[in-house]
């Protein structure tokens, strides 16, 4: 059947027309087989340009449309909409990218025009083989799963719950709060972190629309946008939440203490039955089985003996529970890990006692921390007379992480301020590569610190050592650094060194990304759908990301992302049903040989095998349309809608129109 193709060549002002002879391409296109009309126009994306398409569809009865202009990532939606307005199915449209892929990449008019013709011809030959497609409707379950109870997850959960939707908030640790709960003050306003965070945590704990599952982990995720089934392992706390009042007597009476490597960053101790911190939400403690004497030797039970509730809340027989929940969307807010600074041995962490990590220092300056807010050396009593803060430990360093960790400059400035505040006589040296303070109020904070008398030394610290060369250096830590502003090597003797380690993706982020079937980058951070225009969506529909799991970020940015992800989910829920792109695979059961090659290939487990009929079938809603199975099917039984073999083969013919050797091609 012959089609009536309309071809529109865009000048894009001079962006295309400067290098591609657009009139020539348009005239040439008009002479091609099945092309009913070909035009060139200054701006096809303008309303007038779109009207050209609409009018031609109506008046000339076009059955296919090709626009040669910019990238489809820019305006494919625009022109599809124009087709719909004209009364044409949006998938009977194809775009040729003669701007980003052509006119902007060369000054050679001849070559650019030739390439434009090839791209236009490819689009014409392809569009003839297009079929009308209809979006696929999917119902959205109004429950949402939020994974991670840090500030990003908390903000996402509260936004949704306040909007009236039910949220399951899953947190791996015994309490929500995340890293923010460990911090003392937040930059640049110096709000007390706990003062602003704990009310939010309490809101989460008490919210009728939030089911809080702490000390729990996601085990399995099945399903697709609108209809996920998730298995959550609720680890045994050995404390029965039905009876426990959170009075804390068990914690008081527990006779054993261990070093708290999680919340107190190794600087403090906790009991074996514990809450990570006093304001923990939920308030129920958890027994650390590995260190509990009862679990090791069968004796003690102090917690149970002293538990005042009736019935007794301590349950040594408690088992892990697997909960199955149904949700429509999932927001991942799994946070970050800190770079292990002992990987850089020249900074002496672990070898030199008074080298601290930023998190240790954060706990130290926290009034509820192990030193009750006193800044002291590792002996836990001597205040330092001088402190060096080393920026970019593992960040902006090709040996470790090339990226900037975003928050270290600001918290290093904050540390300097807190030291000045608590120990006015103490000298503070900030050794930085560049100071980066690009948010509201941040630069002002930097200036404030300069006024407070912090020494700023621009240079990457080479070495921290206790090998003194002079009497002045005796008993000190010596920070060896090139001060690049005065072009001089310096040795700065200090009592205390604080390392600001890189923010890293979670150790298990790759496994998590596989579990949720979405991507993560080289560094392990989850990949957003678009770095600028779609930063909280992922390539998998129904899975969103928020906070530092997507890349290093501070509290305000994490809150923003949490809220943004919630807004996206809320929008989907309020619509009830969403339309999904019909670019999906389907299997012709008659042609399927039942070899099952495709079953294993599908990264989304979207292909099931019917044992009875010995054929495979694609679950349309699960399919994300990559086409890997289509390419692999030995019987050519799988069709990838909108990327069919016919369409791509014709596109190849078109793109090679000027060099084709059709006599060599069988069939």
């Amino acid at each position: 059947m012959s089609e009536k193709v309309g071809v529109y060549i865009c000048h894009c002002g001079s962006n295309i027309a400067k290098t591609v002879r657009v009139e020539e391409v348009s005239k040439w296109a008009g002479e091609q087989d099945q092309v009913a009309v070909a035009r060139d126009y200054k701006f096809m994306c303008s309303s007038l340009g779109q009207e050209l398409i609409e009018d031609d569809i109506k008046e000339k009865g076009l059955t296919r449309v090709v626009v040669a202009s910019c990238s489809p990532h820019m305006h494919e939606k625009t022109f599809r909409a124009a087709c719909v307005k004209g009364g044409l199915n949006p998938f009977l449209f194809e775009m040729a990218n003669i701007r980003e892929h052509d006119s902007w990449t060369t000054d050679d008019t001849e070559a650019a025009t030739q390439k434009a013709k090839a791209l236009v011809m490819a689009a014409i030959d392809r569009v003839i083989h297009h079929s009308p497609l209809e979006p696929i409707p999917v119902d959205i379950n109004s429950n949402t799963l939020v994974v991670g109870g840090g500030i990003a997850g908390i903000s996402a959960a509260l936004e949704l719950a306040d909007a009236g939707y039910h949220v399951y908030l899953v947190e791996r640790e015994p309490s929500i709060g995340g890293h923010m709960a460990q911090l003392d003050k937040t930059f640049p306003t110096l709000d007390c972190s706990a003062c602003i965070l704990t009310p939010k945590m309490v809101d989460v704990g008490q919210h009728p629309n939030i089911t809080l599952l702490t000390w729990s982990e996601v085990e399995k995720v099945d399903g697709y946008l609108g209809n996920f089934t998730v298995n959550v392992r609720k680890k045994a706390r050995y404390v029965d939440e039905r009876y426990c009042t959170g009075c804390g007597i068990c914690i008081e009476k527990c006779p054993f203490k261990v070093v708290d490597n999680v919340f107190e960053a190794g600087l403090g101790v906790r009991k074996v039955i514990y809450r990570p911190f006093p304001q923990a939400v939920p308030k129920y403690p958890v027994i650390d089985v590995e260190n509990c004497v009862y679990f090791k030797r069968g004796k003690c039970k102090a917690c149970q003996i002293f538990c005042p509730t009736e019935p007794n809340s301590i349950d040594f027989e408690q088992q892990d529970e697997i909960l199955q929940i149904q949700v429509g969307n999932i927001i991942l807010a799994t946070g970050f890990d800190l770079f292990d600074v002992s990987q850089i041995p020249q900074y002496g962490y672990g070898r030199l006692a008074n080298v601290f990590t930023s998190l240790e220092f954060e706990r130290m300056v926290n009034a509820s921390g192990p030193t009750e807010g006193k800044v002291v050396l590792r002996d836990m009593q001597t205040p330092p007379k001088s402190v060096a803060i080393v920026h970019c430990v593992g960040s902006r360093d090709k040996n470790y992480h090339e990226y900037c960790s975003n928050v270290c400059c600001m918290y290093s400035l904050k540390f300097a301020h807190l030291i000045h505040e608590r120990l006015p006589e103490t000298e503070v040296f900030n050794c930085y590569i560049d100071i980066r303070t690009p948010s509201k109020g941040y630069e002002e904070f930097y200036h404030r610190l300069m006024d407070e008398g912090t020494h700023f030394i621009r240079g990457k610290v080479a070495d921290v050592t206790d090998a003194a060369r002079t009497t002045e250096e005796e008993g000190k830590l010596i920070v060896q650094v090139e001060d690049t502003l005065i072009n001089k090597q310096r040795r700065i003797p200090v009592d205390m060194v604080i390392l600001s380690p890189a923010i890293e993706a979670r150790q298990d982020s790759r496994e998590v990304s596989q579990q949720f079937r979405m991507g993560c980058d080289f560094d392990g951070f989850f990949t957003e759908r678009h770095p600028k225009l779609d930063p909280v969506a992922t390539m998998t529909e129904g899975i969103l990301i928020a906070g530092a799991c997507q890349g290093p970020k501070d509290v305000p940015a994490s809150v923003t992302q949490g809220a943004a992800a919630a807004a996206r989910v809320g929008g989907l829920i309020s619509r009830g049903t969403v339309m999904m792109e019909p670019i999906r695979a389907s299997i012709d059961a008659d042609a399927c040989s039942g070899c099952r090659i495709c079953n294993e290939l599908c990264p989304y487990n979207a292909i099931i095998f019917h044992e009875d009929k010995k054929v495979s079938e694609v679950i349309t809603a699960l399919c994300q349309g990559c086409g890997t199975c289509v390419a692999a099917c030995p019987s050519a039984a799988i069709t990838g809608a909108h990327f069919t073999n016919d369409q791509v083969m014709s596109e190849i013919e078109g793109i090679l129109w000027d060099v084709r050797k059709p006599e060599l091609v069988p069939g």
Partner: protein
Amino acid sequence: MSEQFEPVIVGFLCNWCSYRAADLAGTSRIHYAPNMRPIRVMCSGRVDPQFVLKALREGADGVMIAGCHPGECHYVEGNIKTLRRYHLLKNLLRQWGIEDERFQLVWASASEGIVLAEAVNRMTEQVRALGPLDWKDTVIGINGRGSFSKVETASLVEEG
């Protein structure tokens, strides 16, 4: 146009990384060889070996497949499937006497416009040095005898 041979290379670019890398190269006004003609596929995993053969037979002098870096595939691991197929197909093409440079796999993320542009430049130069691909002589051979003689020569050269 100059007298020198201008190869035609068909590039299969995945929608999420490499197509966007090419978009970025354009947006950044990076100038590179106009010899690569891009075809968009949703994932490099969609590239059916038939597409490559079709392009070479239809007159392309080379074929480039470009996808997301391993581990960064937007469809989790489609590019890993591509990698496997690529090596199989490359071996096959080699048997037919088609030089390695004519079929290349490139990883370019959406932020690596320059990586894609440089890969296109490099491949264009390599294929230009090889000259046009004559499918008829190379693969079909004279009197339909195939490329046995050429393969034998090729393997001797490799061993030697």
